[in-house]
């Protein structure tokens, strides 16, 4: 397994084009009333076009903060985030975020209205074309027939699908997902992961995906950055393009998962690690 990923990394670097997104020495801090907390320290990451890049780490490792910085909601105190070699200075429609919370969908807009909203708000398309693009994108996530429903009439999984359709319709340079399936039940989550991979196969977007589940990282991502907590630093970058939902539970998959677990928690004892991992993955 280690050998395999080593080979892949080598073959990848041989013909590496310029990365789409570069995180260069980024330090992120946030202020509470009493003190300034360093959430992430000098992070360096390259994300290439077509990547399903996963940020994985325990809570408090600054992965969500890093994603918000890439989205432009937070300014780095140090370092730079470059998208297509241009520095990120604020939120923009070229980086659409799918949040974990269901209230990211304005309740006063129908499914169709919600998907059209960013297209119209960013004045990217006239109304008629926006409608067509929105219908197309709603069909892609399997919600045809629900165009006129309001968010409060949908289940959690359907709401997240609307959020994904909305993001896809914008054809962003990078799609940012902040634990998008964390608030879903386990069965729906499994299905959403599967659909996301199918969608990626079909559309081929670039994705940055934040999660705290090792399984999800291995299944969804093609490359995973492991972040250590307090402050967040990159512990490792691991290739995981070899895994999908069908590898769940396989011997190699388990080995990869416990390797990641050991890297994250620095617990070399394999038996101990196995137990903890099972708990962490639930």
């Amino acid at each position, binding site marked *: 397994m280690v050998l395999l990923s080593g080979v892949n990394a080598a073959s990848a670097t041989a013909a590496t084009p310029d990365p789409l997104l570069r995180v260069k020495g980024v330090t992120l801090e946030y202020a509470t009333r009493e003190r300034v907390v360093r959430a992430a320290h000098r992070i360096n990451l390259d994300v290439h076009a077509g990547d399903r890049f996963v940020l994985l780490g325990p809570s408090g490792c600054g992965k969500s903060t890093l994603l918000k910085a890439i989205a432009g909601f937070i300014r780095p105190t140090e370092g730079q985030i470059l998208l297509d070699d241009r520095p990120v200075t604020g939120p923009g429609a070229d980086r659409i975020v799918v949040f974990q919370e269901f209230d990211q969908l304005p309740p006063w807009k129908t499914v169709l209205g919600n998907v059209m909203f960013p297209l119209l*708000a*960013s004045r990217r398309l006239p109304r008629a074309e926006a409608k067509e693009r929105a219908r197309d994108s709603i069909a892609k996530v399997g919600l045809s027939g629900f165009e006129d429903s309001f968010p409060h009439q949908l289940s959690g999984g359907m709401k997240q699908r609307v959020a994904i359709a909305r993001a896809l319709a914008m054809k962003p340079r990078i799609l940012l997902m902040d634990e998008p399936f964390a608030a879903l039940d386990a069965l729906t989550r499994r299905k959403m992961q599967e659909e996301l991979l199918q969608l990626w196969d079909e559309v081929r977007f670039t994705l940055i995906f934040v999660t705290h589940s090792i399984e999800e990282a291995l299944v969804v991502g093609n490359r995973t950055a492991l972040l250590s907590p307090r402050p967040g630093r990159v512990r490792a970058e691991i290739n995981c393009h070899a895994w999908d939902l069908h590898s769940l539970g396989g011997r190699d998959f388990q080995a990869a998962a416990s390797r990641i677990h050991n890297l994250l928690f620095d617990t070399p004892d394999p038996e101990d690690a196995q137990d903890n991992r099972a708990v962490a993955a639930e």
Partner: protein
Amino acid sequence: MTASLTPPIRAEYERDLPEFIDAPVERDIPLAARLWSQDWLRRLVIVAAIALIWELAARWQASPLMLPTFLQTARAFVSGIADGVLLDRAWISITVLLKGYLAGIVLAFLLTSLAVSTQFGRDLLSTLTSMFNPLPAIALLPLALLWFGLGQASLIFVLVHSVLWPLALNIFAGFQAVPETLRMAGRNYGLTGWRFVAQILVPAALPSIVSGLKIAWAFAWRTLIAAELVFGASSGRGGLGWYIFQSRNELYTDQVFAGLAMVIIIGLLVENVVFATVERATILRWGQQR
């Protein structure tokens, strides 16, 4: 101890479920229950009960000068409507009221939009509301008369005062309560400034805004009727408050009650027709309120 907590292992079983015919899967709710579930009917019953108690109390008291009966009041009301006096007076009140109400709404939106976008605006709003909100509008009337004279301008001034502060407080509270995720989603699409306020904050805060508009509407009525009672007709044409005042002076107590009933009926209409329609079309449809 622990051994006794081990559950026994039981046999598995499978069952074939035949089509369910033992009882109907759906059944109708009885007519009476369906009728009683209508809001308007229950409310009508409440109003009828009040009218009945009033009628009995007035008959027992037997002094039309102090307390006319419900039927006497209804007669005065109908004749007031028939000869056009009551409608005319109500119309005068409503036109003045709407001018003050709308001006107050515009000012409240300006103030709160400023308050969400700048720290200074926030300070301005909180200082002004804490200073002026406790002041009864009617207490400003003498000043208003001094500044704007005996006319509509004075009335509109006190109306704006009574509408602006409670409404601004409600709108601002609504804006503050908009979830962070929704704000970020809006900013993500590149919405800023007034477009952000109009397309994200206002619809998201609509439950608070509507409740603020209702409170402001009631405050405006109270202020207007009280102001008309105190200084009467503006430019020779008085509204409902003046009608009530005049009728009292001439000891037409039934007309006093008819005037009050008019205020109540307008209030009920606005609440149950105008605001209810707005709520049905927006916050109820969007699931922001049950």
